[in-house]
């Protein structure tokens, strides 16, 4: 019994959909699990009832809200795919700019307003059944979530922090390099890809369920960060979460 699945893009870079399309090795197996009936990047048509809808991007303005509500109405399950959909991701940064000024900077001076409004996470508009966090999503994790839905199991995201995956990969701690890292409070599942590549964790997967904020702030302060620095560090990916609804 295959799932009828659709992919929907809202305000975002479509990188998460691309990640899915890059899973060529798994396509055969995927084809056994789902029938993709709607996917603007690869298919035309659609509009019927769905077992599962994967929604990518943040929700900006009444048009997108209406479209999302339509998708929700005809889908048994709805999954927020990627940081923009899950937590508003980098789109939340728009909140610090005047919308008209931002519109002009992006689309040129005097460009007609797009009427996007403030970007929101999907969960601020409709109920969400499952999430695939990350910017972009991890292909393997997407498959696991999909598989869980196919066998009727609630998908579970790792409850522990990125630190765990960093230690398992035997990576030296980013703090040892004199940089700060959001790894101690951000949800694992990415395999500590950014520290592995020499960067720090910037928190694209959102916070763990129970982040130990107080000890973490103390550690940031010990490393000489001001409150503004701490906020700036969080702002990139973790502004929208739980605050927009």
């Amino acid at each position, binding site marked *: 019994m295959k799932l009828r699945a659709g992919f929907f893009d809202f305000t975002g870079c479509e990188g998460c959909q691309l990640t899915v399309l890059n899973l060529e090795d798994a396509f055969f*197996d995927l084809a056994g699990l789902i029938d993709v009936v709607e996917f603007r990047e690869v298919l035309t048509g659609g509009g019927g009832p769905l077992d599962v809808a994967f929604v990518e991007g943040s929700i900006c303005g009444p048009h997108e809200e209406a479209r999302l509500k339509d998708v929700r109405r005809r889908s048994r399950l709805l999954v927020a795919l990627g940081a923009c959909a899950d937590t508003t991701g980098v789109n939340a940064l728009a909140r610090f700019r005047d919308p008209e000024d931002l519109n002009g900077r992006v689309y040129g001076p005097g460009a007609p307003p797009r009427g996007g409004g403030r970007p929101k996470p999907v969960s601020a508009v409709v109920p969400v059944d499952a999430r695939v966090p990350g910017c972009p999503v991890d292909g393997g994790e997407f498959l696991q979530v999909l598989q869980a839905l196919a*066998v009727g199991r609630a998908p579970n995201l790792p409850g522990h922090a990125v630190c*765990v995956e960093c*230690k398992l990969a*035997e990576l030296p701690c980013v703090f040892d390099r004199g940089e700060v890292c959001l790894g101690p409070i951000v949800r694992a599942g990415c395999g500590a890809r950014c520290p592995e590549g020499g960067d720090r964790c910037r928190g694209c997967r959102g916070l763990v369920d129970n982040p130990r904020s107080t000890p973490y702030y*103390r*550690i940031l302060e010990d490393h000489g960060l001001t409150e503004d620095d701490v906020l700036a560090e969080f702002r990139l990916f973790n502004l929208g979460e739980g605050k927009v609804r």
Partner: protein
Amino acid sequence: MADRRVLPEPLWLPATEVEIHRLVRAAMTAYEVVGARERRGRLTMDRLDDPSDLLLSYPPRVHSPKKFLFPNWEKLFRFRLGGRVQLEAEHTAVPRVLFGLHPCDLHAVRILDDCLFDGQADSAYRAKREASILVGVDCEPDDHCFCTSLGTDRVADGFDLFLHRDADRYLVQVGTARGRSFLERFAPAVAARQGAPPLPLQPKKTRKRLARPAEALVGLLEAGYEHPIWTEIGDRCLGCGTCTLLCPSCYCFTVEDRLHLDLEGGERVRAWDSCQFDQFAQLSGGGEARANQADRQRHRFFRKYKYLWERYHRTACVGCGRCSRECLAGIDPVDVLNRLLAEQDEAAPAPAPGREYQPDLAEVVVAEPLGAGVKRLRLRLPRVPAFAPGTFVSVSVFGLGEAPFTIASGPGDDTHVELAVRAAGNLSRALHRLEPGDTVGVRGPFGNGFPVDELAGQDVLLVAGGLGLVILRSLLLAVLSRRREFGRVVLLYGAASPDAFLFRDDLRRWRQDGVIDVRLIVDGSDGGWCGPHGDVTRLLRNLDLDFPRTVAAVSGPADMYRFTNPLLTGLGISPERIFLNLERRMKCGLGKCGKCRINDLCVCEEGPVLRYSQVRHLREAVER
């Protein structure tokens, strides 16, 4: 194949560094060889592709052998769905050499053995353990290591081979028969070499140290379950689990199914879990047994230093320092335990073992002859001694020993006590050689003396023979310090010769002042003595005391008592009111050694001053 029996005779074989690398290369033909190596600029414990990658000298911060003996994501079995369910066992373990394990990590393997072989042995672990040859190598502790506090800085067994650096070569210590055949097979030249004498291994030095031996931690934690320190470190803890993941002996795990994407099959795997994670101790009805980080950190400490100690008599911590080295919050077990230990000491200072046997040092202030081979020593103690007349101190001359001496001075002499010492044995002769300014050891005062308060309001009769005056002088000085509270005070004092009277100046003064009635007698004849002759009992004849309200204090040679006791009771002094000095060779002064026991009576605790009524029934009391 897994002959992990320890060799009966230790074997130490010299080998060069080149030979060691050649051994690794040869072993790679039959084994997967794992060791410390650099990979993309960082140190890891990993599979070697090139023997020259192996580092034999590396800092203690790479992963422990747990990574290979008890790996994260270990398949337990495979299952096939599609039709009838089929279960398939996992493949057998890869033959592997873990090359270059530090002593602490070899100790950690033993902890894993304890835990995982206990009860029904964990066969997945056992398979890897048996397929793995363990080769140890020596290390240099860093600032986080505290192996020296747990005795894990050296390792005597638990390895197949151990490489000791010895100047420009290695000494290969062969631990097991398996290690020997491994060496014979892959480094025959080394195996055939003449054995060298074992290296004398010095204990290592670490900057971090526990303030007490590991044995002290069980009781410490037992008493510290509710200590606020757990909340303190809980408030600092990020719950990231780094401490347990990196711990070489932490092995708690979770079991999950990994389903293949085609849903045709999958495997059941176990993955490392951590008591520091949310939901680790989940309860079936909701909630968690250890719901906050304070509970979880406490659990970690209790497990490491108490629970597993109680079970296997080994701490489950090897002092490798990985947890504190990598903890962002700086939670360091040594700091935590030392703080608890320091507070425990403050609350109830634990005496150093043997402390009660360790004397205070006292200075000799006066050392003068008293005549008849007896010397008066006046000692200054470090503090004012509290004692009743009739008690004793134990005096040490270091190197010769310790002996008891009854105190000759009265209480209330500031920090001083006086002794009258007759040169009889080695120790007392050494005391005779002391000069003012010399130091002796003093313990005590010990024992039970005269109940001076009980004597008040009565007539006091003192009967002294020879050196027996010493203890009665102490009583007399106490009585004289509050003379008006007593009735008549009579001292009867017998000596072998006129020279033998001790404390003559005191006797003369007391006589002259008329504060007490002093009557002396000399046993035997001597031309120079114009007083009475005979033993001291003669002086008991013409006493005009009110005997029913008289107390007697008797001190002298054992024979003397046998005559005086019946005479005194005959005069009408009841046995409860006759106090005898029954001093013995009181060795410990603490009621323990048993040397001063008279039947069931312990002289150093209940005496040396005892009522006649207390001892008259004791067969062993020669004085009765």
